[in-house]
């Protein structure tokens, strides 16, 4: 029973991180109807920005302020990067076919990975140890072992989800985002500046991915330029599982994927855990392509 609860906790933690990344995929899909492949690399850069701000710029480790500073640095750099990527690579393609945009997104993803892997321009291909951002100690509750790191990850993830909910449902720009994803043409007819909203969406999604990167690195403290690929793909699966374009769906999907993966890791099938998410994806596309919370769409001719 204790082990079950322990795994449950680990699963929820991993799920919260997947949820943060999945929200970025789903928001971009909501406004632009395409899969932003570069999202997983923004996630990776988030971890690296935190690493740089601690190792190179001298933010203190194991301190609350230093940790929050690194987190904020990662989020703002990633937000800026997301806006720049959208402006340079995706905006010129606004009226082109989905396929063109998809291929461009793959190109951007490869570009970020390769620049990051280059020893001259980026960080080099070798994994690096991620510092301890926050003060850590182990708490024992009942039979469970919880580190303050894990609680921090959970707290940050919950706060960010709450802030996101507030932005999307209680602010002007959030309303504009929802209007745009509902009907882009109608939104521009009522005076919404679509380009501005899309920029904002990219910034917001990338900030969440950056935060996700930092939290992920706190949980698995070894970072490398290709670390984004697998969590990114799983988060995408989470977004599809919940119903792509649907924000609560992405959060739910992230949680499910995180839990399933953690429980599979505890069994004999643990080496297959990376394949599980894709198995779920294929199953969901077969039986409920609109996702758990999505509404099936009818294509009009």
């Amino acid at each position, binding site marked *: 029973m204790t082990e079950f609860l322990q795994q449950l906790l680990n699963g929820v933690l991993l799920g919260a991180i997947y949820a943060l990344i999945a929200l970025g995929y789903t928001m971009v899909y909501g406004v632009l109807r395409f899969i932003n492949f570069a999202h997983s690399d923004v996630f990776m850069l988030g971890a690296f920005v935190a690493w740089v701000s601690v190792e190179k710029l001298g933010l203190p480790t194991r301190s609350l302020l230093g940790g929050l500073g690194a987190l904020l640095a990662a989020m703002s750099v990633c937000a800026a990067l997301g806006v720049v990527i959208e402006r340079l690579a995706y905006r010129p393609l606004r009226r082109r*076919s989905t396929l063109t945009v998809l291929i461009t997104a793959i*190109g*951007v993803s490869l570009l970020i990975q390769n620049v990051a892997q280059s020893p001259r321009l980026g960080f080099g291909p070798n994994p690096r140890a991620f510092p301890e951002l926050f003060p850590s100690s182990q708490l024992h509750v009942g039979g469970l072992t919880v580190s303050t790191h894990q609680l921090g990850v959970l707290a940050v993830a919950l706060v960010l989800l709450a802030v996101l909910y507030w932005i999307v449902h209680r602010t002007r720009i959030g309303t504009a985002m929802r209007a745009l994803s509902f009907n882009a043409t109608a939104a521009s007819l009522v005076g919404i500046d679509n380009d501005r909203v899309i920029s904002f969406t990219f910034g917001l999604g990338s900030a969440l991915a950056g935060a996700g990167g930092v939290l992920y690195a706190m949980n698995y403290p070894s970072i490398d330029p290709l670390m984004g690929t697998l969590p990114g793909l799983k988060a995408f699966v989470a977004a599809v599982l919940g119903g792509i374009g649907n924000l609560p769906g992405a959060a739910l999907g992230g949680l499910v994927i995180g839990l399933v993966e953690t429980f599979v890791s505890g069994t004999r099938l643990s080496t297959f855990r990376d394949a599980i998410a894709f198995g779920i994806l294929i199953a969901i596309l077969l039986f409920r392509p609109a996702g758990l919370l999505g509404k099936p769409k009818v294509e009009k001719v």
Partner: protein
Amino acid sequence: MAFPKAQRWLLAALLLSGGASALSGSIDPYFLDVVMGVGVGIVLASSLNLINGFTGQFSLGHAGFMAVGAYTSAMLSTVVAPRTGLGPVALQWVFFPASLVAGGAVAALAGLAVGAPSLRLKGDYLAIVTLGFGEIIRVVLQNVDAVGGARGLTGVPAHTNLLWTFGTASLTVYTVWALLESTRGRGFLAVADDEVAAEAMGLDTTRYKITAFGIGSFFAGVAGGLYAHLKGYLNPGGFSFDKSIEIVVMVILGGMGRHAGVVFAAILLTLLPEGLRELGSRSIPNPFGGPAWSLDWIKDARMILYSLLLILLMLLRPEGLFHRRPSRMPSS
């Protein structure tokens, strides 16, 4: 694009590769290796062209099907072949082609298994499912000890020669071409042009998509077999997402749905890394005196240039380098 005597071209290509193969003993082994790599690249690109270019379905898992074929034929050659008691000649000229076909067949089955459920979905989703499938294949191969697991499979006999590679390459290009020129084959283009209209005209679009997927996967599997018997060593990491992307770039660069363009792009993109590697190991004499300028950075920048090329191509010339007709990409 229609040669009136396509069969003659095919025959000429087969004879030429046979002739070149007979002379291969006097060719520099490194050069030979690169040239055969080009042949494998042509098979991969042409087969993916049938799926991505002509039928308009976006697959990101071609390397996965290649891996299925590669491991199947390599296992046949390393485990089954020694027990058949065949001589070296029979092994290379009878058993090896049979193992290539077997590898292709298993890959085609895998293609059908993936394609049948997922081809009902549109564009983006299909891309993700095929990508996911490619990853599953890789994870499974890494975990099955019988095929070497993460250490890889070694000791695959070097049966691949110029005749097999370029013979297969010519057959692939010919098959894809002949298929599309046939009456039924026009349906593939119709599916790519406008799926709804094609369906309204009474075409079974899902069936066409699955057929394209099966045939494309078959040739990817054969290419995998050639690759296995060319390198003599297989590693699950060699069939990653990056490999799939490489094949996709060949198809895009060649202009989705162009036969010759894609072949040319496959040649170009297989030679380019080799050329850049060669260039990177040289240095330019410094005109101002002092130490020579090393071109070492090119090795580093190779993949960066590659990805920039992909982005710029999409921004400036999404129809590919060798495209003359209006774009055939679906416009949804």
